[in-house]
């Protein structure tokens, strides 16, 4: 993997100017995501409008990959139904772990495929996936997820 490809303009832009940054005062769902190995730590809050994601926001401290992934996730899932959001979560995880080739297999990831390069950087896969697992936790009313230990969503996905 060439990090020149990973740190593309769109990722750098979302890192510098994260969209939907902050916390929703009237959130119906929220979750905290933690990657203890590198210290990525995000808080995600969202408000469902019927079965759709009406509004969504995130904040926290993280590397550029995690922050850009969070930012792009919020812009992508806003207005989507829970089922559509869960499908994106699965597809993003499969792309990041190398199980889905966005070039040749059908998917709904669109511009999110800029993160495909992390598949070749095992230590960075969790940075990209963290917001997506946090979203899954929020939608399923789990308060906290961690990328380490029994609750490691990547390990669970692989097992």
């Amino acid at each position, binding site marked *: 993997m060439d990090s*020149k490809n990973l740190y593309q303009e769109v990722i750098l832009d979302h890192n510098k100017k994260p969209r939907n940054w902050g916390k929703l005062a009237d959130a119906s769902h929220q979750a905290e995501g933690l990657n203890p*190995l590198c210290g990525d*730590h995000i808080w995600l809050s969202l408000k469902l409008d019927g079965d759709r994601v009406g509004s969504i926001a995130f904040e926290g401290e993280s*590397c*550029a990959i995690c922050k850009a992934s969070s930012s792009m996730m919020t812009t992508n899932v806003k207005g989507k139904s829970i089922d559509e959001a869960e499908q994106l979560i699965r597809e993003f995880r499969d792309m990041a772990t190398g199980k889905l080739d966005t070039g040749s297999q059908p998917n709904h990831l669109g511009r999110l495929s800029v993160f495909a390069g992390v598949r070749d*950087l095992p230590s960075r896969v969790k940075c990209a996936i963290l917001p997506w697992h946090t979203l899954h936790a929020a939608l399923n009313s789990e308060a906290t997820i961690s990328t380490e230990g029994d609750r490691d969503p990547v390990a669970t996905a692989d097992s």
Partner: protein
Amino acid sequence: MTSSRSVLQAVQPTGALDVERIRADFPILKLKVNGKPLVYLDNAASSQMPQQVIDRLVRYQTAEHANIHRGVHYLSETATAAYEGARAKIQRFINAKEAREVIFTRGTTNSLNLVMHGYGRAFIGAGDEIVVSQLEHHSNIVPWQMLCEERGAKLRMIPCNDAGELLFDDYRKLFNSHTKFVAIAHVSNALGTIVPVKEMIAVAHQRGVPVLVDGAQAVPHMKVDVQDLDCDFYAFSAHKMCGPTGIGILYGKAALLEKMKPFEGGGDMILSVTFEKTTYNVIPHKFEAGTPPIAAGIGLGATIDYLESVGMDRIAAHEHDLITYATDAFRQLNDVRIVGTARDKAGVLSFTVKGVHPHDVGTILNEEGVAVRTGHHCAQPVMQRFGIPATARASFYLYNTLSEVDALVAGIHRVQKIFG
């Protein structure tokens, strides 16, 4: 290479080492990473192995291997002689009084845990206090926390200043009638601070308190004399000093080791076993249950031969050149903060780049073939002290060159350009 040569001349290094000749001993340094020559600056995590040590491992495995101790056949006697020969080399290398004071362990962490179980659980009780420093690696904090929790003892902490130097007066004031043990790092893995352990040991001994020194970051880089330090315990690992993983050392004063309890039970650590009573073996074997990593132990012996052939003083002088040169270069970089600026520093350069997470720094440096470590370096209390979640850390060894420091600096420029 013209530019790097001119840099070398400009700094006028002490020329302590013929680095190119040393580099030729390390086959892994010929690797290319992402099409660039490998610049290996992650030595505080683990160092590379010279051909001489690799050859020794192969020779042992090819023609000398059998289980050690108690065997009457040729191979067992050969392996035992080589393994115990390595112990004697280590004894001489750290100037221990006797070979039986040198215990083979799995590594520094294992050594520290051995002292916690064998000494701590035997002699530290409710209300007692254990002193550690703010600079410790988690492996010299967590075992003591476990002991404190189990026994109702208390953990006290020696704070450090903004440079990452321990506050000596605060250390003195921590002592009281409950103080039973001191456990301190010789060199901070996260900041590179060289801790004045000899003076600190003297302070503890005035009060009759034994001291354990975590020397994982010291033994590979400087001459360590355990009798001169007068430490009661000293721990280190082979893999940070050009040796194999899976083997480390606990030095302990014989009188203390003899009154300690065994850590693990099993073969080799006993004199006799019946179902009524087991009599433990003498030191060091009392602490060496089960079959050890024999090849790794012999490899550690070969590692010491190698380091001694280069000379520890010359290695220390060379690393001093590298850290001085790198520190000067980093001070000229905009928006780069050096974390850990102690006057007395080993070859460790921890830093942050403004607006860029250390993991992104590390990934981009890797693209340039430059290997650094990023994260909290298993020293979260140090990170908390400096109010940061993580740093990037370059750590040097005998085979690093000034032009590799230039490659690191060029990599930082590229990081700043990408994130600019």
